[in-house]
């Protein structure tokens, strides 16, 4: 009995020690600052064991080549700055389950051979990169083969004034990754804002991508991704997405992508995707579609674009429903006669039909392709006659008595009133 009680006491003491000690067992905290044990981030990271937290206090650390090889958290307090002084890659994550938060990381030089980045993750999973500021780097955040990683709340800002495309890297570059989450980031001044290649089942939401030299968003061979509530504006060539299927794009804004070779959204070989509730404002071309099939383009706003939609004849079975077309120079243009595309229940501000039975749907079909826009597609130099009186006259006559414009491109049920689908945009954003 005495033995038993002794045994119990020892046992409970052990449990107590274990309980108290458990936070310690999860990891130590290694502090880095001028007066701390560690003065260098690199040294602290090297000493850290799995599960440790490396806490870096405010200050400027002139370091590069920091390699994280164990699952640690590298946390910045009071905005510490890691300045690479153009001496190569700054942070390389070579371990799974790493968290990197709260740093300003700056100055990575152009390196054509190594593609140096401020933060690179190579072949590891579950990485969290949160609330960092990346300034003046070649590549910003580079994920390669990093499944289930989160890139959230970062600002990636490059210097692209006077630079050409080939001497710039991408702000957020993701390659061969499954289940990534890219959200609430602000990227600007790079070649591509967000670049995806072979990225699957990922979510990209609430990002702002602007003033990039080439594309705000660029993805290829990246199936099953969801893009919501992003803003892509003032990018050199807008947004271009290629060779992909099962994409959802909702509540995004594509605006001010204005220039001879700029597109709001360029779709090439995209299929079975949904483009819902987006806004296309003031782009040279709102959506340019090539070889894209089975797309559902619904409830979007096309406002003040040069071309709202350029639908090449290689596109089939695309559906355009409940969209608003206002103030565009050309609503839809095409280079041939695309087949089996459906336009239905859209609002066209150029529609001049009537509604006798008052069901809010025009009784006369609307043909969104104008004769002149077809002529321009066939003979590009004829664009010099834009706004000529003759052209306006031609278009009006053709609209009354259509004979050249494709029979198949017609909205049989045009809406009489502008469709109101962005009134609760803010609300939707909050609910999600």
């Amino acid at each position: 009995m005495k033995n038993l009680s002794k045994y119990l006491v020892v046992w409970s003491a052990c449990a107590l020690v274990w309980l108290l000690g458990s936070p310690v067992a999860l990891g130590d905290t290694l502090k880095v600052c001028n007066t701390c044990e560690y003065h260098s981030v690199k040294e602290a990271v090297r000493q850290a064991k799995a599960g440790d937290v490396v806490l870096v206090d405010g200050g400027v650390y002139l370091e590069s080549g920091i390699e994280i090889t164990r699952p640690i958290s590298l946390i910045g307090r009071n905005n510490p700055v890691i300045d690479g002084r153009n001496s190569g890659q700054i942070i390389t994550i070579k371990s799974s389950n790493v968290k990197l938060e709260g740093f300003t990381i700056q100055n990575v030089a152009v390196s054509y051979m190594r593609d140096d980045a401020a933060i690179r993750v190579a072949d590891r999973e579950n990485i969290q990169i949160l609330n960092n500021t990346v300034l003046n780097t070649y590549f910003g955040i580079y994920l390669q083969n990093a499944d289930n990683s989160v890139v959230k709340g970062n600002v990636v800002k490059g210097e692209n004034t006077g630079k050409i495309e080939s001497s710039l890297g991408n702000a957020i570059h993701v390659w061969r990754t499954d289940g990534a989450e890219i959200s609430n980031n602000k990227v600007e001044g790079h070649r591509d804002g967000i670049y995806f290649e072979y990225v699957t089942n990922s979510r990209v939401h609430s990002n702002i991508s602007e003033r990039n030299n080439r594309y705000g968003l660029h993805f290829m061979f990246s199936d099953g991704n969801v893009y919501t509530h992003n803003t892509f504006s003032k990018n050199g060539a807008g947004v271009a997405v290629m060779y992909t299927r099962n994409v959802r794009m909702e509540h995004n804004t594509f605006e001010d992508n204005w220039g001879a070779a700029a597109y709001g959204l360029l779709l090439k070989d995209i299929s079975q995707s949904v483009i819902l509730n987006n806004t296309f404002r003031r782009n040279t071309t709102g959506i340019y579609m090539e070889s894209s099939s089975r797309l559902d383009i619904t409830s979007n706003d096309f406002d003040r674009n040069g071309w709202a939609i350029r639908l090449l004849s290689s596109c089939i079975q695309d559906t355009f429903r409940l969209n608003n077309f206002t103030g565009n120079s050309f609503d839809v243009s095409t280079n041939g006669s695309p087949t089996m595309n459906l336009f239905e229940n859209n609002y066209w501000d150029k529609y001049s039909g009537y509604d006798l039975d008052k069901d809010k749907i025009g009784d006369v079909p609307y043909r969104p392709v104008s004769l002149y826009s077809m002529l321009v597609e066939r003979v590009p130099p004829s664009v010099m006659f834009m706004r000529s009186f003759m052209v306006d006259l031609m278009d009006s006559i053709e609209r009354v008595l259509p004979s050249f414009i494709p029979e198949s491109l017609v909205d049989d049920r045009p809406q009489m009133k502008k469709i109101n689908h962005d009134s609760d945009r803010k609300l939707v954003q909050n609910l999600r």
Partner: protein
Amino acid sequence: MNKIIKYVLYDIIRNKIVVAYTLFLLLLSIGLFNLGSSPDKGLLSLLNLVLLTVPLISIVFATTHFYNSYEFMELLVSQPIKRSKIFMSEYLGVTLSLSAAILIGIGIPVLLFAPGATGLYLVLTGVFITFIFVALAFLASVITRDKAKGIGIALLLWFYFALIYDGIVLFILYSFGDYPLEYATLALTALNPVDLGRIMVLLNLDVSALMGYTGALYKSIFGSMWGIGLSFGVMVLWVFIPLLSSRRVFQKRDL
């Protein structure tokens, strides 16, 4: 010569058409600038109207004026004054008054709402088109003594430059669509002052981004001092060719 111009100007101002024309342009410009959301849009709408109305009004006004002042010219011819002097005075009198209407009616609103190179081009285009179409009107008037016929020819000329010409060029472009036509289009547009003016203004506006490769090419041509000089040179040619040929006819023919 100055004295004759003065009399012509006095005559024109007295019949109040030019004043009405000035007010019309002024109201139009101010209205369009206030209607449009941006000054660029205002300029664009203004451009369309200028290219349509200014040639029409210039050509009709100049033709009727020419026929109406036939007696005055006959009176002057009986005096020891050279015919070319009389003719040039008539021409300058009409063009100066119409140009003044443009400078006031379009120039002032542009200066107020959209100052800049584009606005300057628009006003310059308006002035050049006035000079060109008055010259064409005088050409139509010296060809025939019959007033109805003269106005008919003048209207036909306007119709040709404002409408038919573009139609013909579009037809040519369509027929030869398989060939690279950028420079051919450039040459063809230079053959119509209305097109030339329109393109010069359009290239300076945002809309030029819609013009793709052709637009970029034109921009590189018209963007250089050389290109601007050349296009204004072509405009000047467009003034002088009809003007000098009509003066020649006027000097030789039996009034």
